[in-house]
C-alpha cells in the first residue's frame, strides 16, 4: 500500500467518525459534490412531474369500467405486451450483437460499407415500416397478388404469413430497433482492449469462444442497455401495433381514454405499462451485475481482426446485408415506388418549412437532453446517495410511457402552471390573461425531454462507467477541480458516448408523433405529422414523400455518428 492510499484511508476514517461521509459531508463541507444532488433532484423532479401527475390518478377508486376491462380485454393486452417485449428484446439482441461483432472483429468484403449501413434502419420509424410492410405483404398487396397471378390460387388455396399480427409486429420492430443494440455493442467492442483478446487466444480459445466467454460478458452493460432501450421503445409504440391490429396496453390506453371517455381507467392501464417498464429497468440493473467493468491498462492495442475465408465471408456478408435490406432498403424502396406513382402534392416551400421545423426541434431537444443526462450521470458518480439513485430512476421512466400519455401529463402541468401559478401572478401584477407554457415550443421540448431522456442518460451512464474512478482520483491529485476534470479528462473520453446519445434523441424526436400532435403550437407542423395525417386518411401513397423525407433527414446524423465513433476510439489516434 502506498503512502498516498494510506493517507486517503485515514481521511475517510476521520470523515466517517464525524458522520460526514458521502453526500451529507459533501453538502456540509461545501465539497464540489454538494450541488450535484440538488441539481439532479430538480431535473428529475421536473421531468417526472407529468408522469407523476398521470400516476396520481391511480389513487382514485376503481370504477366498474375496470371490471369490464379485466373481464374482457385486459388479459389480451397483458399477454400481447409481454410477448412483444420479449420478442423484440431477443430479436434486437441477436441482430445487434451479431452484426456489431462481425463488423468490428472480422474482415470480409464490404465490411467498411456495412459498418455504417447497419445503422440505416434507425432512421425508419416503427409506424413507417409497419405501413410499408403492410402495403407490400397484405392480401391485396403486390407480393400476394403476384403469387396468386402466377399460380392461379385463390384465398383458400395457400397459406401466407399474416403480416398484421403479433409476429409481424415483432418482426418489423426488431428490424428497426436493433441499431440501438448495434450502436452500443459496437462502441463496447471498439473500446475493448486488444490485449484481452490476445491473451484469450494465447490461452487456447478460438475466435468463437473468445467472443462468447470474453468479449460478450465484458460488453454486457452496453448490450443490456441497448436491449432495454429497444424494448422500451417497442412498449411505447402506438402507431405500428394499432395499424397491425395487435391489442397491447398502448392501444388499450387510447381506447379506454377516448373510446370510453375514462381517463382514470386509462391511467390505471398506463400504470401497468409503467410497472412493466420498471421490470425492464430492474432486469437491466441485474443484467449489469455488481461487477465493475474497467480496463486495468491504458495501453489499448489495435484490435486483432479475423480474416474470413470464402464461405464464412459470404455468410457474414449475408448476415449483415439482411437486416439492412429488410429494415431499410425494402421499406424505403416501397415508399420510393409509391412516390413515383403519385407522391405528396406539397413539395415546395411549405414542405421546406416542415423540414426546418422538424430539424430545429430535434437539434434543440438533443442538445438539452445530452446536457441534462450528463448532469444526472455525474450526480450519480460524484455524489452517490439514495436521493440521486431515486431521482435518476424517476427521470428515466418517461421513455416507456406512450407519447400521448406524456402529452396529457405535460398539458395538465402546463395548464396548471398557466392557469393557477401564473394566473395568480398575473392578477397580482394586473397583466391580461394569456398562455405562456401551453401550446408553446417550450412545452413541446419539455415533453420530448420527459420521453427521451432515458436514451441519452443510459448511453451517457454506460459510457461513464467505463471510465474507472482511479482516473478521477489521479486527476484530483494533479490539482484538477471537478469542472476542470470533467472538461479536460472525461469529455474527450466520453465524446463517442455523448454523440451516440445526441443522435438517439435527435432521431427519436424527428420521428415522434403523438406528443407533437397534441402539444404543438399553432401553425407549426412537422414531417411526422404530415405523414400521420395522410396515412390515417389512408392516402399512404401521398404520405410517401414526407416519409422519405423523414428517413433522409435521419440519415445524415447516422452517417456522421458512424464516422465519429470510429474516430473516438481511445487509442485510435496512436496508430
Amino acid at each position, binding site marked *: 500500500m502506498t503512502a498516498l492510499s494510506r493517507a486517503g484511508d485515514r481521511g475517510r476514517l476521520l470523515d466517517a467518525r464525524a458522520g460526514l461521509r458521502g453526500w451529507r459531508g459533501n453538502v456540509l463541507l461545501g465539497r464540489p459534490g454538494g450541488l450535484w444532488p440538488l441539481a439532479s433532484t430538480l431535473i428529475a423532479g421536473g421531468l417526472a412531474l407529468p408522469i407523476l401527475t398521470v400516476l396520481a390518478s391511480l389513487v382514485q377508486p376503481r370504477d366498474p369500467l375496470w371490471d369490464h376491462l379485466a373481464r374482457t380485454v385486459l388479459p389480451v393486452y397483458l399477454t400481447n405486451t409481454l410477448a412483444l417485449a420479449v420478442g423484440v428484446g431477443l430479436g434486437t439482441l441477436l441482430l445487434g450483437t451479431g452484426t456489431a461483432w462481425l463488423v468490428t472483429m472480422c474482415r470480409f468484403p464490404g465490411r467498411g460499407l456495412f459498418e455504417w449501413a447497419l445503422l440505416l434502419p434507425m432512421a425508419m420509424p416503427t409506424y413507417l415500416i409497419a405501413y410499408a410492410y403492410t402495403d407490400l405483404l397484405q392480401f*391485396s398487396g403486390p407480393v400476394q397478388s403476384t403469387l396468386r397471378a402466377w399460380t392461379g390460387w385463390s384465398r383458400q388455396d395457400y397459406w401466407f404469413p399474416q403480416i398484421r399480427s403479433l409476429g409481424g409486429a415483432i418482426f418489423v420492430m426488431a428490424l428497426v430497433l436493433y441499431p440501438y443494440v448495434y450502436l452500443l455493442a459496437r462502441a463496447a467492442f471498439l473500446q475493448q482492449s486488444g490485449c484481452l483478446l490476445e491473451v484469450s487466444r494465447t490461452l487456447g480459445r478460438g475466435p468463437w469462444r473468445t467472443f462468447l466467454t470474453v468479449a460478450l460478458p465484458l460488453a454486457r452493460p452496453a448490450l443490456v442497455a441497448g436491449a432495454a432501450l429497444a424494448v422500451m421503445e417497442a412498449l411505447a409504440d402506438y402507431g405500428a401495433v394499432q395499424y397491425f391490429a395487435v391489442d397491447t396496453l398502448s392501444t388499450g390506453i387510447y381506447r379506454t381514454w377516448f373510446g370510453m371517455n375514462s381517463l382514470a381507467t386509462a391511467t390505471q392501464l398506463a400504470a401497468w405499462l409503467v410497472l412493466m417498464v420498471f421490470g425492464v429497468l430492474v432486469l437491466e440493473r441485474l443484467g449489469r451485475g455488481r461487477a465493475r467493468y474497467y480496463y486495468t491498462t491504458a495501453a489499448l492495442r489495435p484490435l486483432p481482426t479475423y480474416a474470413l475465408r470464402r464461405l464464412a465471408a459470404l455468410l457474414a456478408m449475408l448476415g449483415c446485408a439482411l437486416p439492412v435490406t429488410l429494415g431499410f432498403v425494402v421499406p424505403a424502396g416501397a415508399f420510393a415506388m409509391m412516390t413515383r406513382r*403519385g407522391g405528396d402534392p406539397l413539395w415546395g416551400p411549405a414542405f421546406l418549412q416542415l423540414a426546418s421545423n422538424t430539424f430545429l426541434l430535434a437539434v434543440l431537444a438533443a442538445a438539452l437532453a445530452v446536457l441534462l443526462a450528463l448532469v444526472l450521470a455525474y450526480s450519480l458518480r460524484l455524489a452517490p446517495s439514495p436521493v440521486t439513485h431515486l431521482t435518476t430512476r424517476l427521470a428515466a421512466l418517461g421513455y416507456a410511457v406512450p407519447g400521448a400519455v406524456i402529452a396529457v401529463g405535460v398539458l395538465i402541468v402546463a395548464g396548471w402552471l398557466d392557469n393557477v401559478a401564473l394566473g395568480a401572478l398575473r392578477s397580482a401584477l394586473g397583466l391580461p390573461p394569456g398562455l405562456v407554457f401551453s401550446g408553446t415550443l417550450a412545452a413541446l421540448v419539455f415533453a420530448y425531454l420527459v420521453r427521451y431522456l432515458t436514451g441519452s442518460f443510459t448511453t451517457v451512464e454506460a459510457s461513464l462507467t467505463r471510465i474507472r474512478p482511479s482516473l478521477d482520483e489521479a486527476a484530483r491529485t494533479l490539482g484538477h477541480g471537478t469542472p476542470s476534470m470533467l472538461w479536460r479528462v472525461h469529455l474527450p473520453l466520453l465524446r463517442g458516448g455523448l454523440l451516440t446519445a445526441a443522435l438517439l434523441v435527435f432521431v427519436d424526436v424527428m420521428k415522434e408523433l403523438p406528443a407533437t400532435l397534441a402539444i404543438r403550437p399553432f401553425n407549426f407542423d412537422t414531417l411526422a405529422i404530415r405523414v400521420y395525417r395522410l396515412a390515417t386518411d389512408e392516402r399512404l401513397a401521398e404520405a410517401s414523400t414526407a416519409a422519405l423525407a423523414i428517413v433522409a433527414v435521419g440519415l445524415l446524423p447516422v452517417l456522421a455518428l458512424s464516422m465519429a465513433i470510429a474516430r473516438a476510439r481511445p487509442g485510435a489516434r496512436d496508430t
Partner: protein
Amino acid sequence: MSRLVRVLLIAAVGVTALVAALVPLASAQSREINVYSARHYDTDRSLYDGFTQLTGVRVNLIEGTEDQLIERIRNEGANSPADVLITVDAGRLWRAQQAGLLQPVTTATLVARVPEHLRDPEGYWWGLSKRARVIVYAKGRVDPAELPTYESLADPKWRGRIVVRSSNHVYNQSLVGSLIEALGPEATEAWARGLVANFARPPQGGDIDQLKAVAAGEADIAISNSYYLARLLKSNDPAERQAAEGLGVIFPNQNDRGTHVNISGAGVVATARNRDQAIAFLEYLTSDRAQEIFALGNSEYPVVPGVPLDPVLESWGPFKEDTLNAARYAANSPLALMIMDRAGWR
C-alpha cells in the same frame, strides 16, 4: 469576470426572461380566429382561405385527433385561445358539450341552413357535412337484395364474408349507437355477436383497407363511409379505380328508419375570445360556396339542401337517411364500445 459579476449577470438574464415571458405577445386579436380541427383533408385549406378573403380574418389552424383537441381545450381552461372546434364525428361534439367546452350559439342563418337532425337542439354544435355509413359489396358475388338492412349482416349465411374496421373507431361506435337507439342494447349485442361471427378476418386497417380487401377477394362485404368509396372511384391510380368499379353500394334500411348518417360539425368554444368572428366562420361554412368545397373536395354530402353533389354521389341517387338526432346516438357511444367489447369486436 469575477464570480459575483457572473452570478449577477445570470440572475439578470433570468429575471428579464421571466418578465418577458409574462408579457403576452401582442397580437391583433380581433382579426383572427383559432380553429382546432380534427378534419385532415387538404382541401380544407381552400375553405379557410376563402373565409380570410371574404372577411379579412386570419384563420389559425391546429389539427389533431378530436380527443387530444378536446383534452387540450379542457386543460388550457379559461386561457384557451381556441375559438372553434371542428370534428369528423357527432359523438365527439357531444362529448365536448358534456364537458362544458362549447357554448350555444343560434343564429337565423344557421337554423335555416342546417337541418334539425344534424345539429344540437340547443345550438351547441352544428353539422357541416354529412357522410353515410353504407354496405359495400362485390358485384357478382353478392346479391344486393339479400342485404336490405344493417340487421341482415348478422345472418349466418354471410359467415366469413364480412370485413369492417375496428370498434376503436368513432364511425362504428356511432353506428352501433344508432342501433342501440333503434333496437335496444340486448338486441344490438346479439346483432354484434352475429356480425363478429361473420368476419373474414379480425378487424384491421381503415375503411379503404376493407374496400380493397373486398376488391381483392379476401371478403365479399364491407361496411364503410360513403366518401371512401367515392375517393377510390376517383383515384389517380388506375388499379384502384378498377378495383372500385367492381364494388357496389347499398344504402341500408331504406324501407324503415333510413341509413345511418354521421356529421362532421363544429361548435364555438365556451371560452372563445373571438366569438363574433367564430360565429361568422360557422355561418360561412354553411354557405353554398363552402358546402360545395366540402362536397367536391372530399365527396361528402353537404348538409344544406340544394347544393350540387359530387358526380359519383349523384350517380348513387338520393337515399332515405335516418333522421335520429345526432345527439342521441352520440350519447350511446360508450355503451356501444362496451357492447362491442363483449361481442369480441376488437
